[in-house]
């Protein structure tokens, strides 16, 4: 463990310094998690404001989520080479620029660019955990972890609750001003309060840019195909070509990762069935929760005359979506089920309950 805050510092001062580090890292992750779901209750309002189609409007959410999986492995690798304090400040700056771009957007394209930049924020999660590990003493780590998890789920709920009234009463661009200002404060706080967190070993692992590009092409082309499929037709040559491009890029990515010395993603571990099952469960959880976050606002905000709409405002939509972030209360129940019914039963319980939700 590398304590960047000197042990010689007087105890009260040291506690304040440790608390400040924790506040900055937890705050950075909390703001990003709020950004991730902020637009969900306002999707139909933004769609009407910008005259977007339903598949285009989902890019407002997809944009934030798309850059995350591409950038996070790269940033995690950069954290092995460079100072994590500088990296967290740089990422927060990119996210702040993203919120500024979104707050000044007057067209779908500009808004999506802003959202794509905000997606860099996902890499704040491993960076924050890394900084916590470098700066906090062992006794503080458990407290730090639980605080981080509370911040992740708490801020997601707060983001949804706050977004509704803002979208109902003001222009949607106001949604992005609060996170922008909070990020500016956090950048200044990180600059002033975080100690340097240099890499532990003087290693310079190579960065797998080929893998990164192939993964971006595979995921990006698939998502673009899904966006334009309603226009092109689900069986059209254009849609099938884009899917073929995505499939080929994915195969090339797998080959590149298996042959690279320092792969972006260590795919060999997928030989373990439990790891593969874990990844599939995680993908299914992401899929399910986001299909609810996109479809429920589109349903409940339709007028009563449609026969299925509830004529809900964005504020009410935010309240309806909040139970979707009950994720935090599940952990103790899983432990109990696993103890009494076994690992397989505990593993199928989650998808079963999500399936009932659908």
């Amino acid at each position, binding site marked *: 463990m590398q304590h960047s805050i000197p042990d010689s510092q007087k105890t009260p001062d040291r506690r304040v310094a440790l608390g400040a580090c924790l506040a900055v890292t937890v705050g950075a992750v909390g703001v990003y998690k709020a950004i991730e779901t902020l637009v969900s209750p306002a999707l139909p309002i933004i769609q009407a404001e910008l005259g977007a189609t*339903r*598949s285009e409007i*989902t*890019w407002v*959410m997809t944009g934030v*989520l798309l850059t995350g*999986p591409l950038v*996070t*492995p790269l940033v995690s690798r950069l954290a092995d080479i460079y100072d994590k304090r500088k990296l967290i400040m740089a990422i927060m700056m990119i996210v702040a620029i993203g919120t500024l771009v979104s707050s000044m957007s007057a067209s779908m394209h500009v808004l999506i660019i802003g959202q794509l930049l905000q997606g860099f924020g*996902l890499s704040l*999660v*491993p960076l924050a955990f890394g900084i916590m590990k470098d700066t906090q003493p062992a006794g503080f780590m458990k407290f730090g972890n639980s605080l981080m998890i509370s911040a992740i789920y708490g801020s997601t709920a707060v983001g949804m609750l706050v977004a509704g009234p803002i979208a109902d009463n003001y222009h949607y661009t106001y949604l992005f001003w609060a996170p922008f200002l909070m990020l500016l404060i956090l950048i200044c706080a990180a600059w002033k309060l975080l100690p340097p967190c240099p890499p532990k070993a003087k290693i310079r692992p190579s960065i797998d840019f080929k893998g990164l590009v192939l993964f971006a092409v595979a995921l990006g082309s698939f998502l673009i195909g*899904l*966006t334009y499929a*309603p226009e092109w037709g*689900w069986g059209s040559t254009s849609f099938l070509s884009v899917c073929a491009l995505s499939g080929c890029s994915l195969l090339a990515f797998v080959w590149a990762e298996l042959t690279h010395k320092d792969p972006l993603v260590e795919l060999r571990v997928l030989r*373990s*069935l*439990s*790891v593969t099952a*874990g*990844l*599939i*469960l*995680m993908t299914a*959880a*992401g*899929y*399910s*929760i*986001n*299909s*609810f976050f996109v479809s*429920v606002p*589109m*349903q*409940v905000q339709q007028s009563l005359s*449609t*026969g*299925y*709409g509830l004529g809900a405002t964005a504020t009410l939509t935010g309240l*309806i979506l*909040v*139970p979707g972030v*009950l*994720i935090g209360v*599940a*952990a103790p129940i*899983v432990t109990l089920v696993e103890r009494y019914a076994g*690992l*397989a039963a*505990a*593993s*199928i*319980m989650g998808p079963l*309950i*999500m*399936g009932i*939700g*659908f």
Partner: protein
Amino acid sequence: MESAGSLPIVVASMLCAGFGSGVTITQAMNLMVMGVPDDRVGTFSGLNFVAKAVGATTGAQVVGGLLSTASGDVSQAPEWNHFVYVFSMGLVICMIAMACAFVGGRSFSKSYANAKVERALR
């Protein structure tokens, strides 16, 4: 499968979605932690969140695509049928995940039991 226009049912389905995804994420992390060497847990926990983000982007885009089908007019509300497609698709994904989780959970339990027996025999 959600029925049309009922607030309690929408809220109940959101509760199931939230609680179900919470259980799923926790168990996914458990399976991952059990399956990788201790010194690599950090790296692979990150991979888990990447998988979640890939699922999330696909979920959002699939829903957008399905709700747009056959309704070119932006101002026109999607038909209820399209929501049914969305929910059916989600249900299929959950069933696939259940099957994989069952196989993954069982395989780990078996290998864990075998290791215990081997240790006992030594």
